[in-house]
């Protein structure tokens, strides 16, 4: 088989699967009309409506704003706390039990409490998103900071960097590979918490849009909303990977070197 043949055949298979599924759905929708089986064109229509016009401002953008704010807080808090906790071992016995307990609270359970404290506000939703997604970043940053090669720290000390400088200029960059993998996990959790907070307590956003259309039996719009959330998730994941690739370009080369050195 030629190289080209090997490459094209899977693509053909994949295209065929997608087309077959779409065709099957459409056929079923037309043959057995049911509330939960709207035809494809209605879903597509709903999908495109979300991306411009009024819906953009009442559904997509509010969701993105909350997601962005919550995720940013999670990264900031997670990185700062993680790097500090990972470098200052003496804090460990004090803080670790708390974190170990908090990280295993199913984050939804926090939602009613933050409803009481913040009311049904954006602050409350941002808090829930940040609470849910901070732990993967925090744990990854702590781990990364703990595994920094002590030689690097000795070098930093020898050059005369202060403790704060060492944290920012040595520990943080060295923990970045670990932090990024934590961020990928955190992103998917942030997305889940965004949806949940909007399902349970909101009057705009994608989650609210989905739930309202479900109550109105506008099924095509429900599917369109789900697809939009999927698109957002995919887009943000790809963006995160792109940033990671740029920021961590040194890491791959370095790891490749040390690994061949070992083998």
């Amino acid at each position, binding site marked *: 088989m030629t190289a080209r043949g090997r490459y094209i055949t899977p693509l053909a298979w994949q295209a065929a*699967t997608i087309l077959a599924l779409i065709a099957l759905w459409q056929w079923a929708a037309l043959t057995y009309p049911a509330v939960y089986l709207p035809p494809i064109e209605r879903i597509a229509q709903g999908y495109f409506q979300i991306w411009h016009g009024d819906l953009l401002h009442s559904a997509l953008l509010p969701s993105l704003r909350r997601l962005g704010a919550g995720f940013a807080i999670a990264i900031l808090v997670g990185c700062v706390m993680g790097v500090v906790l990972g470098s200052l071992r003496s804090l460990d016995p004090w803080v670790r039990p708390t974190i170990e307990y908090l990280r295993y609270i199913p984050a939804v359970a926090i939602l009613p409490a933050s409803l009481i404290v913040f009311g049904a506000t954006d602050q409350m939703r941002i808090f829930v998103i940040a609470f849910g997604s901070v732990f993967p970043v925090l744990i990854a940053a702590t781990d990364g900071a703990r595994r920094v090669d002590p030689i690097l720290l000795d070098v930093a000390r020898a050059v005369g960097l202060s403790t704060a400088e060492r944290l920012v200029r040595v520990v943080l960059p060295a923990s970045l590979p670990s932090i990024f993998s934590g961020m990928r996990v955190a992103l998917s959790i942030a997305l889940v918490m965004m949806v949940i907070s909007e399902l349970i307590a909101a009057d705009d956003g994608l989650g609210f849009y989905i739930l309202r259309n479900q109550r109105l039996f506008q099924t095509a719009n429900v599917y369109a909303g789900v697809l939009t*959330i999927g698109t957002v998730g995919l887009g943000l994941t790809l963006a995160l990977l792109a940033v990671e690739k740029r920021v961590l370009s040194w890491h791959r080369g370095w790891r490749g070197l040390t690994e061949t050195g070992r083998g």
Partner: protein
Amino acid sequence: MIASWEAVRALGFVDRRDLPSAASIVETAAVDLWSGGLAHAVLATIGSWAPGLAVAAVAGAGAGIALALLPRLEIATRPLLEFVRPIPSVALIPVALLVLGVGLQMQLFMIAFASIWPILFSTKAGVEDVDPRFVETGRVLHVGRAARIFRIVLPAMLPSFATGLRTASAIALVVAITVEMLTGQPGIGSYIENVRLSGLVTGMWASIFVTGVLGYLVNALFVTVERATMPWSTENRDR
């Protein structure tokens, strides 16, 4: 932890009435567990969480192994999997409500659906990452193809399956509680909502505290079982 809780209370960013003292939370938790509906709620949540997760474990492991061993199947279904993966399962709760209505069936379906993905993907990765040298060793020792799958591939991928299952167990708990909050299905989620709506602030914090303990115990259970049954897994060797 208690100290920082009391510190937040003392600093007064938040209305005191919304943040009861740690001691009263623990006390209420004990009382509600003993005499109130909290224990029932916890049991109800576990009662839907466990079977949902079990179904996901079997289906996810089966699908993951099949996808790893049958490259054609993997290629054909890849677009579908990549399509489903970024969609947060909770976004499908309204869809499940449409199709299945309110009830235990819908809750079980959502739990199983949400927890199948981490299990599937980590099982698949586990099978794919089995060192080819293991399989070769099996060939040299004249172990047949089917026996190689059972005696080499399955044990070699068990640690990654277990990791996937542990991730899924946490997701399943979140989904179970979310569904309970949204639909009033009996369990922790609806319990917390009811307590909140009745204005029992301390009771609400107490039930959140208990939920956290449950989440912690679930994780601890999985970690303990993994360590006891898979001492060879690289994660467990240092301990």
